[in-house]
């Protein structure tokens, strides 16, 4: 039950019961044990679907942040038979919160870039909890230009609570590193597919998120501010984060309705952490489909559509 989210507890209890019934059935099969297994299986699936359907935005945020959730390099491991990581911004350092490199994605050669979190303290120190410094954004841009030069599609996997708010990051101009990427990604003469695989935290997410297709995993979120940050401003306390998560309309479903994202990639029942290999299959296929569509377009059309896509964001009246 370690790492279980509150709303997962009944489900996990039921799964344990089911496992136990299966074990008994295997040891000494009978009509009774078979009936019990079938009944528990059916209850399990109903409960799983119920939970999935009724997840609140805040519960989805918790899934998006789950420590067992597959991270960027987990997906790369599952999807890419080859990944050649390339390091450094060629100026000051190499940001381990933002790995990038050439990869075979399914059957395609691509450039993959993304945020990487850690699972334990040691890894999180290395990965800085998935919060990149300016070096990370500059490395990303350097390698995206490399992809453009050699006609490789770019796959950007977004998973960050936000860009790092530290003294060094400010001194080395984190704001400009993000802004520069926003402008330059708009001009990349190669297809760009961005997928928010976990947390889409504000400018830190958008800094590698200007793309021809922006997709979200089913339980990922994308927001201008963290629910805690919003709660601290509006309700003066972080404990109101669940209300803030609902108000911000940050879930895949809400973002889709707002016309901000181009598609939702399904996750295994209960969330990607229940079956990373299954989640990887959906991610792989979703990205390949998007690349295939984008590659049909002449580059000027691709660039124009990318511009118009972002140009259209915003709601207002004119009277």
């Amino acid at each position, binding site marked *: 039950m370690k790492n279980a989210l509150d709303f997962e507890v009944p489900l996990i209890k039921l799964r344990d019961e089911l496992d136990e019934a299966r074990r008994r059935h295997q040891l000494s099969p009978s009509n009774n044990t078979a009936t019990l297994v079938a009944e528990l299986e059916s209850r399990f699936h109903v409960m799983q679907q119920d939970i999935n359907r009724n997840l609140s935005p805040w519960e989805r945020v918790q899934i998006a942040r789950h420590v067992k959730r597959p991270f960027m390099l987990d997906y790369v491991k599952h999807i890419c038979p080859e990944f050649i990581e390339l390091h450094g911004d060629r100026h000051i350092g190499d940001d381990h919160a933002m790995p990038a490199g050439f990869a075979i994605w399914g059957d395609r050669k691509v450039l993959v870039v993304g945020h990487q979190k850690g699972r334990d303290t040691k890894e999180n120190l290395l990965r800085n909890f998935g919060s990149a410094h300016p070096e990370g954004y500059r490395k990303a841009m350097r390698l995206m230009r490399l992809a453009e030069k050699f006609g490789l599609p770019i796959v950007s996997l977004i998973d960050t609570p936000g860009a790092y708010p530290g003294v060094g990051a400010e001194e080395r101009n984190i704001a400009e590193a993000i802004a520069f990427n926003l402008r330059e990604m708009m*001009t990349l003469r190669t297809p760009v597919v961005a997928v928010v695989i976990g947390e889409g935290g504000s400018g830190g997410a958008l800094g590698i998120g200007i793309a021809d297709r922006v997709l979200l995993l089913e339980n990922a979120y994308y927001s201008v501010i963290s629910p805690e940050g919003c709660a601290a401003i509006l309700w003066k306390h972080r404990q109101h984060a669940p209300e803030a998560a609902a108000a911000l309309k940050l879930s895949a479903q809400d973002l889709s309705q707002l016309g901000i994202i181009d598609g939702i990639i399904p996750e295994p029942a209960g969330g990607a952490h229940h079956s990373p290999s299954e989640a990887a299959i959906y991610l792989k296929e979703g990205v390949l489909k998007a690349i295939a569509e984008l590659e049909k377009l002449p580059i000027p059309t691709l660039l124009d559509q990318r511009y118009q896509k972002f140009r259209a*964001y915003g709601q207002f009246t004119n*009277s």
Partner: protein
Amino acid sequence: MPIFKKRTVDDLGEKKRDMPEGLWTKCPSCGESLYEQALVKNLRVCTHCGYHFTMSAPERVASLCDDGTFVEMDATLNSVNPLGFKGYVEKVAANQEKTGLGEAVLTGRGAIESIPVLLAIMDFRFLGGSMGSVVGEKITRAIEAATAEGKAVIVFSSSGGARMHEGILSLMQMGKTSGALARHSEARLPFISVLTHPTTGGVTASFATLGDVILAEPGCMIGFAGARVVKETTHADLPKGFQTAEFMLQHGLLDRIVVRKDMRTTLAALLRYMTRG
């Protein structure tokens, strides 16, 4: 709506409370009491110590443009409440009432020492200068007009960042404005970004730091994250002068600090190098 509205006592904001009849304003830097009319005449710069008070967008226009050249654009764009955020509509209305502005940015065409430019001037008084759909759209339209007309664009920033109440739509304005600047830049046209107090968050992380030339007013606060957030995250003391214009200049993050009375001539001098013909 006239841009150059006569200033009234109400425009003085919170300072008026401890000042008799609003005739005097106390300088937060040197503590000197300043006669309101003298302060206005001095472009809201303390006559004693040079402290730059925040300036409203209409005042800024008046301080920059050749007389009678400024024509406002897109004044009729109005915010809606796309997320159904509680209290947002009322907040916008109250800020319109308070400032006499439609939104947190004023855009238009004007001339600076006879050089035609597109101007976008943010006003911090309006919901902290925050960028929602309308602010992003107005700035984008100004940049696109500059591109279409072969003109320079000048943006004066003053903002707490992206507007929370419009959620993800506010975040996307960063991409939208930056995209418009990509096209403006490809057309080899000049963009001058002027940072004024304060410029933070999503505005700093989009158009404000993309200037061909970046200027700042003295003493203004510039940063990505707020100083409080940085302090809470890092649990460390902040360096002296952290996130001020002077700190930014020292770290090579902006081109020049320009005092307000020299802004107009500096912009014109720069533009003469950056425009052909």
